């Protein structure tokens, strides 16, 4: 393999990062292509309640006699797109506000920081539960509330990193040239704080999957009979001892996805922390 360290793919130079990319992509591919691979429909009643694995149903049957494998292959899309969407919205809104706050360092900074601090005081899950139980459980609403719960963390991270960068001379040079505020924010400062933000994005994906599964588990997320990994854990908990695969399979996939995004994010952080240092 050629040396990546001098190219724009330098962040892929670590084996760990590559493993993270592969694991994450595999889980995403499974979730995306799953519905076509699934031997049966997710809501087809095929076997006995909590039926054990057989040659025709490798992971057995769930609490209503659905094929667990088919529900597993169908149930990844919702939780993955929702967590990616929520993390992306939080990243977009949060980093813009955080950059603004970190660069302006005046009243705007105080206002944004204060808002972020106040909303951080609410526990995430409680906040989401509150909004979902009041406004309903439409998927876009759930995505939005999870994004709202994530945004203050992004703001604080972006602001803290931006403050350190904004004090450097190349930013002052840009100010002296008379570059516009948005240009300074997005062309001069943002590329320098992208690493912690990307790492945080990876973490948010993990938390998002966890939170969405948790919502489904508590009965506030995706409504049955839709197949969904979180929902599957909730539905089948009663049969955990009889037919553990119905709970374990989705839980393991969520775990693998979390692990993949985590080591990917960590690898990116580790590899690009060296850029910009004195050689």
């Amino acid at each position, binding site marked *: 393999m050629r040396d990546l360290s001098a190219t724009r793919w330098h962040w892929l130079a670590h084996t760990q990062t590559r493993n993270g990319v592969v694991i994450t992509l595999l889980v995403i591919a499974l979730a995306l292509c799953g519905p076509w691979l699934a031997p049966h429909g997710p809501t087809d009643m095929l076997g006995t309640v909590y039926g054990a694995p057989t040659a025709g149903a490798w992971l057995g049957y769930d609490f209503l006699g659905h094929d667990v494998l088919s529900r597993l292959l169908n149930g990844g899309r919702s939780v993955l797109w929702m967590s990616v969407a929520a993390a992306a919205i939080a990243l977009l809104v949060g980093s813009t506000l955080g950059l603004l706050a970190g660069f302006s360092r005046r009243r705007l900074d105080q206002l944004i920081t204060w808002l972020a601090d106040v909303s951080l005081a609410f526990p995430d899950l409680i906040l989401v539960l509150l909004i979902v139980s009041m406004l309903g459980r439409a998927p876009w609403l759930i995505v939005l509330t999870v994004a709202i719960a994530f945004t203050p963390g992004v703001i604080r991270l972006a602001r803290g990193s931006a403050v350190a960068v904004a004090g*450097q*001379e*190349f930013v*002052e*040079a*840009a*100010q*002296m*040239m*008379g*570059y516009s505020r948005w240009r300074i924010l997005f*062309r*001069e400062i943002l*590329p*320098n704080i*992208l690493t912690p933000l990307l790492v945080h994005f990876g973490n948010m994906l993990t938390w998002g999957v966890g939170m969405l599964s948790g919502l489904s588990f508590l009965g506030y997320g995706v409504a049955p009979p839709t197949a969904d990994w979180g929902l599957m854990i909730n539905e089948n908990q009663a049969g955990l001892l009889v037919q553990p695969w119905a709970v374990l399979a989705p839980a393991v996939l969520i775990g693998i996805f979390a692990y993949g995004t985590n080591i990917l994010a960590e690898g990116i952080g580790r590899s690009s922390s060296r*850029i*910009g*240092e*004195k*050689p």
Partner: protein
Amino acid sequence: MNALAGFAAPDPLSTQVLQVSDLRVELHGQVDVLSGVSFSVQAGEILGLVGESGSGKTTLATALLAHARRGARIVDGRVEVAGQALLTLQGDALRRARGSLIGYVAQDPATALNPALRIGYLLRETLSAHQVQLDRGAQRQRISETLRDVGLPDDPDFLRRFPHQLSGGQQQRVMLALAFVLRPRLIVLDEPTTALDVSTQAHILATLRRLCKSLGVAAVYVSHDLAVIKDLVDRVLVMYAGRIVETASREALFSRPAHPYTRGLLAAIPDVAQRRELAAIAGHAPAPGQRPAGCGFAARCPRRTVACSLAEPALQEVAPGQQVACLDPHRQALQLIASQGSRQVGEVVERPPLLDIQGLNVAYDRQVLFDVSLRVAPGECLALVGESGSGKTSLARAIAGLGENAQGQLYYAGQVLSLAARQREAGTRHQIQYIFQNPYRALNPRQTVLQTLSGPLAHFFGIKGDEARERVAAVLERVSLPASVGALYPHSLSGGERQRVAIARALICQPRLLICDEITSALDVSVQASILALLRQLQAEGLTLLFVTHDLGVVRAIADRVVVLQHGRVVEQGGVDGVLDEPQAGYTRTLLDNSPTLAGG
């Protein structure tokens, strides 16, 4: 001196305190950063260890404490301090030897002192870690003696202070006290005065010399600047690319330097006493692992012959006490070429000023500039001189439009100039450019040189695409960089190259006034010489320069006129030769007296 009490007089039979032989330090993969280093230091002797960045001087300094930085390994050789073979020691024995046998003073006292611990606690902790037998009374006495020796107060009030409550000079004295309180036989100092003002530096050096002589402590003083150590050291060791290239007594080295590199270094140092032609050394030092065969300096050497690249020259005696690693060493005295004086001051001041500053005040939590008024004539190089806290950087920033708390009037080419860059017209904004002190922070690490340089082109002149690329190549050539640099990110450039890119960013805006804020203070002297030559050339092409510096030697080398600032007020101004030869203000005289110089004895 009371500090001599309780200190064993050096054994007259073994006055050799430090003995280093065949020391070799390697990086991963048998790449040497230091090789074949042998020398010794006597009790009471001060050895200057001189070299530019990457020469291995700091590696050698830490190797004297049997320490190698991460990634490096001491693979061969002996280091003996007072008869103890240091490299064979491990764990506790090594820890005891460091400190009690060898003291170490780091470069930046502000980061070397733990900010959470009081001065008294730092000293007591150091003592009790190494010399358990001292009781409280003896401890207290030793601490007061040491503090008085290094020129600090020893009252309880001072001992209760935290490092941040002290000035930079006091902090470095505390570092000296921490090293001397254990009465070591050898003390290693790594550029301990680079962060300090010239007058503070002069005091610290005088204190150090007095202490070493009176206590019989051997010292190794690491520095990149020959002028600084001229009055301090007894002997000098010049390093280049991990080798000793010359060692000589102070007198011999400064009057008859034998190695072409030593002569190059000396010729690159600007001098306060007289204006000289500064000669930069062409090229740069080989990186570890890329050493050419033969002499490491051959590629940059004006005297190289075919033989130079065949075998590595060994250290050979050219005169008693002077050894040099060169096949064809210089044998005559060094003649530094004086250049013609600065231009007539009258001529430049008569014309209408390009920049006129009237009644400028700057206040943050305290006022740093008081009613400063000055004029910059077109085409001149005006030096703004002062120590830290004099307000010189605040003044420069206010002119550049970065001063947030400034009040007063600025006129540029007869027009009123706003104090905020954003409110200036684009037409005037590009004419005033600012170059920052630290080349490592002045360039966006996430942008290539091409991106950095083409930004202003598109912004001010709407030039993009191929024409922008041509302009960038042209401006890179103007600052003597190859066009291929355009594709690189700043982290693959050296400090001098980065500063050239920063200058190119200013030049591409087609400025008339260039504000240079201590732009050479982070660079090696030979690099500084080439940057100063570039600035002089730009000035000859019609550029007006405002040069902010604390270094009077640089002022003498480059400026036409000088303004001396103290505590936010102008104390003296005039033509460079007039001010530096016959200073009127007492403060200017103090600055001059404390500035290191190569001239005279």
